[in-house]
């Protein structure tokens, strides 16, 4: 029993990271129908940047994170404007290739700026709480809480603000949104900005829980897509549920079945869900 609870807790932290990655992907997908493959690399970049600001530039950690998030927003805006906008009217395969090109550029840029080394963002949070045999490292607890807070504010933003509604409107019917007076040129910029900011947060979490290294972006984005598919493309609740399911499934699979095959089991679950519900858990038919 304790083991089960512990394993679920283990899975929640990583699940939170998956949710954040998937949230960014899902909003971009919902609005623009783009499979933004570069999202993982951008997350990685955000993690590296935070590490650099905190370790080499000596900023306090929270300031470093805030600065990286701001840079992430700008980067997201630039990506939409310079890379995706020109191919908006072409087929979605073209946008996918642009995404691959972006991935390479971000990876390359990251190597130039921060080198090949794996880095760990130092948080200084090494206390461990224990409740009835279940241990929770302080850091993991904060990660779970931060993820929850970000998810909640994202949901509120989309549901309750005018801009959030405009984002939904563009996602559902671009032309009608124009006719409502929505500036449809600006919306994708906002969406990419927010999405990338969330990606940066995910990168920071991975970088402090574990480590970030070149190439980790691929892993992140693949997991993000798996979550998206599991939860249903374009659905925010879907991303949240999908991320948690994937994180916990992996932890349970690693703990109770086989750690070597935990990814395989996670993907098997995803494929199985899809075959029963081709539109994902929360997707619209």
């Amino acid at each position: 029993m304790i083991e089960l609870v512990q394993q679920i807790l283990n899975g929640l932290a990583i699940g939170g990271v998956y949710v954040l990655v998937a949230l960014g992907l899902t909003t971009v997908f919902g609005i623009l129908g783009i499979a933004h493959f570069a999202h993982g690399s951008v997350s990685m970049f955000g993690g590296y940047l935070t590490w650099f600001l905190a370790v080499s530039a000596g900023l306090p950690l929270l300031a470093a994170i805030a600065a990286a998030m701001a840079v992430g927003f700008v980067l997201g805006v630039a990506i939409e404007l310079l890379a995706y906008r020109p191919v908006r009217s072409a087929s979605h395969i073209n946008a996918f290739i642009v995404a691959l090109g972006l991935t390479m550029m971000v990876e390359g840029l990251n190597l130039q700026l921060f080198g090949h080394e794996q880095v760990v963002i130092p948080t200084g949070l090494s206390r461990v709480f224990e409740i009835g045999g279940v241990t929770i490292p302080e850091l993991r607890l904060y990660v779970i809480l931060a993820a929850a807070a970000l998810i909640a504010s994202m949901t509120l933003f989309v549901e309750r603000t005018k801009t959030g509604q405009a984002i939904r409107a563009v996602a559902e019917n671009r032309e009608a949104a124009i006719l409502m007076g929505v500036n449809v040129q600006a919306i994708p910029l906002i969406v990419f900005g927010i999405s990338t900011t969330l990606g940066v947060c995910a990168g920071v979490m991975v970088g402090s829980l574990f480590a970030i290294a070149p190439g980790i972006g691929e892993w992140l984005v693949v997991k993000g897509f798996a979550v998206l598919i599991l939860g249903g493309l374009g659905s925010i609740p879907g991303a949240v549920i999908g991320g948690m399911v994937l994180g916990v499934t992996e932890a349970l699979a690693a703990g109770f079945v086989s750690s070597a095959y935990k990814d395989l089991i996670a993907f098997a679950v995803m494929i199985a869900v899809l075959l029963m519900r081709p539109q994902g858990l929360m997707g619209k038919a």
Partner: protein
Amino acid sequence: AERTLRIGVSDALTGGASVYGLPQANAIKMAADEINAAGGVKVGGDSYMLDVIAYDDKGNPTEATNAVRKLIDFDEVKYILGFCCSGAASAVASFIADEDAVMLVGNAAERSITARGIPNLVRTRPPADYTGAAAGAFVGKRGHKRVAVLGALDVGFYALYVDAFEKELNKAGGQIIARESFGLKDRDMTPQLTKIREMNPDALLVVGYVEPAAFIYRQSVELGMDIPRYGFTSGSEEQFLRVATSEQMEGVWDLRPTELTLQSATETGLAYHRNYTERYGMPPSPSSPYAYDNVYALKHAIEAAGTVDDTRAVARALRELAPPPEAVMQYLPVDGKMFDRNGQAYTANGAFQWRGGKWVYVEELPSDAKAYSEFLASLR
């Protein structure tokens, strides 16, 4: 006259294995510069200045195959060094016998690389099971009965280490109660550790690259596990501290060849450490001298063979060589030779423990190089 001799390097300069590969490549360049500064490699009346071409194989067999192919076909190189990783080294070893080239393997630990007696291949690091057996005896001697293993067990040489370890542990009445594995890119080992924690082992054995191992040490503390931890990593202090705090590392053992540590180093070892640190701005990793020593072995072999073109002769000369005076590692010569007839060199094994932020050399682990050499030859 002064001429140039190109030597090639294929090693992991990036990626997870670069903790081993990059320091090796650095050490090779340093050795080449030292040799050049001292007048180069002397053959007949000519002195050859060494020119190093290094490709990044990322520790990956396919990339290494392509890199070596390119070194031989495109850059026309005949002497190839590096190879921190078993997979990459094995892949290249599988075809090197057909090439007009000599391959000098450094840090890679897979036994089969020297088990086939490839004539134009030598290696400085002793095989994993040679070390694993010594490690098993040591852990057994310390009285642990129930040992859990967490390792990159689908990588051949780690499994080999654990098998040899288990055999010796069993002799001392201990046993391995769990073999959990992880992928080379995994960084979250809490599921495996949680599972192990439930089994209440007396000790934990970690076999894997430095980074995943460091995460295991860190996460084991985070999960409140308070048992002796042993490992096989050859990582430096700096490499571990990037991931885990010194407190989280405290008391961890590394059971590996004696390699380079400041306490155990000879005069040459200390000089190597000094020069490297000065040149690259950080200390060398423990296993980096394997490649450095290979450069000097090559120099002496070429000079002994009296040719740079006849790779067969150079390969033969390598097998006849006594450990060169410039070598950093303390090799245990077999019949007076640095490389035995398998092409394999041996060092002593040792137990190192993390104490107060440093790896401390605690004791030598008894091993019999000559007997192992016989055994290795018997595998053919």
